[in-house]
């Protein structure tokens, strides 16, 4: 499928040179775009296709209090985006807009993310959109500028890797655990230079939200893009969305989308198979997303210097039971796990419970729409009654560019995607988990097997 979409987007190909590809959808946010717009202006260039460009504010927006943000530098960055979008005629879902949210949450919500498209964004989690059978990957600011100016991008054709996940997911095991299980298997650079295609009965059985979670974490396994062949689940999600095709166009689109499926005899450069029935809820113990063990396990003995550094940073001893690790904070949010389904799963665990007195817990919906729908279902009431903070949409504590950060030494159960040193705040310690696992940890005050928790 990756090869079909690639070939479909070649504007020019010359021997020895990277292919020039056409970009169908360019997503823009406030942090990686200002230098690109500035450089365009300095070179007297304009945005070629503002109608194929969409902007949002997500990375450093405050999640309470609205604008102006107390952080003046962040405020300046948001104003720069507004000004750039106004000047170039780019649609902007800014703070306060009913559709504002994390770029990888709103693209699909708006129906802009569609099968067969080539989608880029100055953000490594752009792989999320691959859940729809789009070829989607993160780019740097120079590439953002290149796409703004030309609507094209020069790229070398990547290799392909099939990640087949088969079998029924055990109770309490979510798409997040599938993603962490895959990374634990292939390693944080196992996917480097490849496009991953997730396939198999487990992937087919996931909702679009679940597929987005799996594709989102692709970059944590080193691959720029991960994708799932579109099917009826994909089409049902898209139908009726604001930017989805309508009427005859819908029928025409579905016919086209059905041709994207990987040919039965297609060969992949690499192959990995995973038995879903053996997956468990995972917890990361270290400082990269590949350092994960089942929640029932223990902190492993360090195998490398990287492991030793990670253990020292995380202040953990080998042999410590994962479930004995006490936490200070819980973050339910991010482009990985802040969609309605994620909040529903977490709320199921939280209902009627109380957040542990030593824990500060927050829920940050992925978009204003998710927030509004969650409130319509009463999920906010469940979280608030338990003692969670219920915030406005944004990237928030996933990367800590806004005031939502960990203090030095604070330990957090987080539904986000990166447990890098200092990612959620200098000196902060992150354990990546699924939304129900994060919810359970908030209540018990330590990492805990959500399967046991539900039984009690």
């Amino acid at each position, binding site marked *: 499928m990756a090869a079909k979409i690639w070939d479909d987007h070649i*504007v*020019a190909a010359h021997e020895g*040179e990277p292919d*020039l590809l*056409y970009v*169908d*959808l360019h997503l823009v946010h406030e942090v*990686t775009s200002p*230098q690109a717009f500035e450089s365009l202006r300095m*070179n007297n260039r304009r945005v070629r296709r*503002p*109608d*194929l460009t969409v902007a949002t504010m997500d*990375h*450093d927006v405050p999640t309470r209090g609205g604008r102006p943000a107390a*952080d003046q*530098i962040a405020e*300046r*960055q948001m104003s720069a985006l507004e000004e750039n979008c106004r000047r170039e005629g780019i*649609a902007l879902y800014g703070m306060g807009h009913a559709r504002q949210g994390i770029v990888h949450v709103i693209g699909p919500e708006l*129906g*802009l993310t569609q099968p067969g*498209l080539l989608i880029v964004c100055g*953000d*490594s989690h752009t792989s999320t959109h691959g859940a729809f059978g789009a070829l989607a990957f*993160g780019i*740097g*600011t*120079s*590439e953002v500028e*290149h796409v703004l*100016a*030309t*609507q*094209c991008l*020069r790229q070398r054709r990547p290799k392909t890797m099939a990640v087949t996940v088969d079998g029924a997911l055990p109770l309490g095991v979510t798409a997040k655990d599938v993603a962490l299980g895959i990374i634990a298997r292939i390693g*944080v*650079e196992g996917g*480097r*230079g490849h496009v991953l295609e997730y396939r198999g009965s487990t992937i087919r059985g996931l909702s679009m939200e679940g597929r987005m979670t799996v594709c989102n974490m692709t970059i944590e396994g*080193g691959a*720029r893009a991960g994708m799932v062949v579109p099917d009826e689940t994909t089409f049902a999600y898209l139908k009726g969305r604001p930017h*989805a*095709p309508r009427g005859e*166009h819908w029928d025409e689109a579905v016919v*086209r989308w059905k041709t994207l499926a990987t040919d039965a005899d297609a060969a992949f450069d690499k192959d990995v198979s995973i038995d879903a029935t053996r997956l468990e809820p995972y917890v990361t113990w270290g400082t*990269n997303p590949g350092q994960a063990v089942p929640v029932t396990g223990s902190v492993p003995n360090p195998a*490398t*210097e*990287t492991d030793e*550094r990670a253990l020292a940073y995380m202040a953990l001893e080998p042999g410590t039971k994962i479930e004995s690790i006490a936490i200070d904070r819980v973050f339910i949010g991010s482009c990985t796990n802040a969609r309605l389904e994620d909040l529903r799963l977490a709320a199921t665990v939280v209902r009627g419970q109380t957040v542990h007195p030593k824990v500060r817990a927050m829920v940050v919906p992925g978009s204003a729409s998710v927030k509004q729908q969650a409130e319509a279902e009463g999920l906010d009431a469940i979280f608030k009654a338990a003692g969670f903070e219920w915030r406005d949409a944004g990237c928030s504590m996933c*990367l*800590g*560019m806004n005031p939502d950060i960990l203090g030095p030494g604070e330990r957090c159960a987080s539904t986000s995607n*990166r447990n*890098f040193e*200092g*990612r959620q705040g*200098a*000196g902060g310690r992150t354990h990546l988990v699924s939304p129900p696992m994060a919810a359970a940890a908030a209540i018990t005050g330590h990492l805990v097997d959500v399967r046991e928790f539900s039984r009690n």
Partner: protein
Amino acid sequence: MQPFTRVTGIVAPLDRANVDTDQIIPKQFLKRIERSGYGPFLFYDWRRSGDFILDRPEYRGAAVLVTGANFGCGSSREHAAWSLLDAGFRTVIAPSFGDIFKSNSFRCGLLPVELPEPQVAELIRLATEKPGIEVIIDLAAQHIAGGGFETSFGVDPFYRECLLNGWDEIALTLRQEGQIARYESTRPAWLPISR
């Protein structure tokens, strides 16, 4: 882009694998809207914790960083490459790089050189045992030599040309306007537009 032809400089060793872009430039410095001025914040948290190897006087002014596998993994922030450039680095040598970091580096004038793990280990050893050794990196000849180390290296031929000439990639693409317009005319009408 500043052309890259031949660089002579001190080699600074950072013997760690999987150095992610959050370590290279932490998020609090991504709020600026300029492209320069990130040098002082390179490896900010590691520097702040004291006795960071790159802060030793022998490595002051280093232009070549030699480090472990998967350097620059994680976030797409080009600020990581900018901060290295701004701090005086022109080349990073490693067994492998994060895909996006590598692509960003080529596009902003920082040369990423991939060498086999044993050679990288050897250069790290040399730069650690004899602090301050210099190497010459010749991109046209694809050759590195100095301080008792010598090797040739492979590099993407397209980006090699771009770096050697300091080409503006956007200008190159804009010359293909005819082909872009032709492609656009074939796109189906039902593809999404943002308005």
